[in-house]
């Protein structure tokens, strides 16, 4: 058994590395084909995110919400429910945070209190809207994927309505809220970059999630319900409550992510389209194999790629549509679960066979 696990682990690493090499190979090839100056393009795509404080800050600015949506999606993904409400609550939380910050709170409120209240608002928004598809799924057996995807749009338009009706700034020509008060903004840790205090919230979320996952009965039952529902039922685990808890916790973390993103990076709330941050959270969860301990790695990888692509876009002549395609190729290959799966099974089979032989010999 140990041998199997060792092989699986090694293959996991080899698989991700091979996928990265192939994906980057394909992208580099494409860059060479379409770019007049492939050297610069490749450099910007691969090294660009590390070439200046600001660009690295941009990477971290993406990394922070990914930590939160990624851990959130770990809950959902581990419970084997494909609930994508994280996308909708992400922007709804951002909207509620802006609403509370601009309309209901005095700008004189102490900074720490302001921030804590806003994070609480984000978390509650996430939990409230996240519980709808979860309850419908577990109590009424309505497919959570359908409900959550539909709800994402409902939340998007509801948020746009809130901006329009409650906090729209008449001095600008596009739809956005009034500027957030200074007290509502997370402190920038490094001036001139987007590295903000939200990173502590993100790290705290990873630690808390890991503790819940591996050190509490709730985490255990979520994992069991997800990986082997029949066993969970036979063992008498309260499936309904664990699964609802997993989905609501996931949405809560996504909600905090939206709140932190708005408070950390933006001057106003201005999302009038889905942000994709919730869907990216699912990618992070997939990259980190639904293990919250690996979420920082997955989040960093995705943030690095997104930033590299953005830097490539605004420093070279490569059109932005192509940049999106390249990202998709990389993600596709990394997320492909069965890539190199045949090799893995062969090796496990061989190892087990030789072990059995040895065992037979010793006997």
């Amino acid at each position, binding site marked *: 058994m140990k041998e199997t696990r060792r092989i699986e682990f090694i293959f996991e690493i080899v698989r991700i590395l091979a996928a990265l090499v192939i994906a980057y190979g394909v992208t580099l090839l494409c860059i060479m084909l379409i770019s007049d100056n492939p050297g610069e393009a490749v450099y910007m795509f691969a090294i660009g995110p590390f070439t*200046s404080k*600001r*660009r690295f*800050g*941009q990477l971290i*600015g*993406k990394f922070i919400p990914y930590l939160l949506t990624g851990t959130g999606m770990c809950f959902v993904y581990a419970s*084997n429910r*494909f609930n*994508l409400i994280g996308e909708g609550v992400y922007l709804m939380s951002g909207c509620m945070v802006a609403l509370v910050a601009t309309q209901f709170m005095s700008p004189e409120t102490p900074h720490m209190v302001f921030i804590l209240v806003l994070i609480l608002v984000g978390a509650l928004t996430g939990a409230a809207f996240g519980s709808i598809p979860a309850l419908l799924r577990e109590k009424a057996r309505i497919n959570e*994927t359908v409900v959550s995807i539909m709800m994402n749009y409902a939340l998007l*338009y509801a948020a*746009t309505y809130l901006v*329009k*009706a409650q906090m*729209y700034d*008449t*001095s*600008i*020509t*596009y*739809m*956005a809220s009034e*500027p957030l008060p200074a007290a509502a903004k997370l402190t920038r840790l490094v001036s001139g970059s*987007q590295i903000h205090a939200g990173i502590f919230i993100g790290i705290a979320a990873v630690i808390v999630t890991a503790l819940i996952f591996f050190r509490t009965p709730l985490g255990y039952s979520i994992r069991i319900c997800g990986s082997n529902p029949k066993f969970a039922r036979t063992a008498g685990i309260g499936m309904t409550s664990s699964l609802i808890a997993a989905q609501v916790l996931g949405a809560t973390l996504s909600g905090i992510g939206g709140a932190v*993103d708005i408070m950390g*990076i*933006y*001057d*106003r709330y*201005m999302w*009038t*389209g*889905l942000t*994709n941050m919730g*869907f990216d959270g*699912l*990618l992070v969860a*997939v990259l980190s194999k639904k293990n919250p301990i690996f979420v920082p790695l997955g989040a960093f990888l995705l943030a690095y790629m*997104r*930033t590299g692509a*953005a*830097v490539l*876009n*605004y420093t*070279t*002549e490569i*059109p*932005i*549509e192509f*940049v*999106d*395609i390249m*990202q*998709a190729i990389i*993600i*596709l290959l990394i*997320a*492909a*679960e069965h890539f190199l799966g045949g090799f893995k099974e062969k090796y496990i089979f061989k190892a087990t066979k030789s072990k059995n032989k040895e065992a037979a010999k010793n006997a």
Partner: protein
Amino acid sequence: MKKLLAILLVMAMVFALTACGGGNDAPAATTSAAATPAESGSSNSETTPEPAKTESIIYLCLNLGDLSFNDLGWVGCQGAAEKYGWTAEVIELGKDTSVYENAFLDAVDSGKYSIVVTQSNYGLSDLCIKYAPEYPDIKFVSFDMSASADVTGINNLFGIAFKQNEGSFLVGALAGKLTKSNKIGVFLFNDVPVGNDFATGYIAGVRHANPDAEISVAYGGGTADASKLQEISSAMFDSGVDVIYGVSGSAYPGLAKEATGRGGFDNGIYAIGVDSDMWTVYKASENADIADVIITSMQKKVDEAIIYTMDRYVEGTLPFGNVEPYGIAQNGVGMADNEHYRANTPADVLEYMDQLMKDVVSGAVEVPSYFDFASYDEFAAWRDQ
């Protein structure tokens, strides 16, 4: 379940792709339109008179390839560069609003550019206001700002506000005269202030020319979705509407296609274009077969506005630290006056329109603006009355 996950992932990625690239036909890879007269002339610069200084423009936009708003800004920058022997480059920012600030700062920090031209959307005008004081050597021009924005004291920032309500008023009046069914439609790309300013002018124009006409207003979701516009146009035509003003450059083919499919002018069906002179632009593109249904267009002359602004800058008369409204009088907006419009509009309507244009310019006819309403609700009540 793994399969389901795989499908979901693919969906997520496809979504990301369409969300980013939606509706853009042209690949938009042109980056540098260097105009070289200055360089070629520099060897004998002592004999030829030269502009005081060679400038380099950087144009920041969301996505090129819409044959309208974003493209027009780029045309304007290229035109100004060509006129004065400057260089112009473009950066497409894409859909992810979180990267705008960094892209903006990367551009101004690169030291390569002396003039930054941006539109105002998605916080780009905020960025100009925020960072212009930190970069006193760079000039910032932000177009499509709100006339009520306050930029006083920032003496390297100039804002252009378009009076889209004035141009829309004219096409609205035309629609009011052209309709046979007394039912008129307008589609707005999104329920946002600038969109509603188009609507305000248009509705006022229709009511001015034809008080009996009924107006249906439809909004899109902000994405450039030609099939959605086609669907909405189809529903409007079904309800008896015969003139539709489509305020969405990128989605416009949806309206033009639907109107063409219903027989166009022969059946009394008219479409009104937006931003560029769409009949002319479509005639010259792969959309030529659906061009003839566009009777005229409300032009938001971003290109000419930028060139005009640069002219004033070169003359030294550009009042930095202000947002100036460019209306019909300043040639910032207008109605496309092309042969197609002249050939297909009844003589009495042409006469009426020419007079109306003069009246709007002189101020004899006052055009309301969305920005005059105290709140959205007040506008909505006026719109739906």
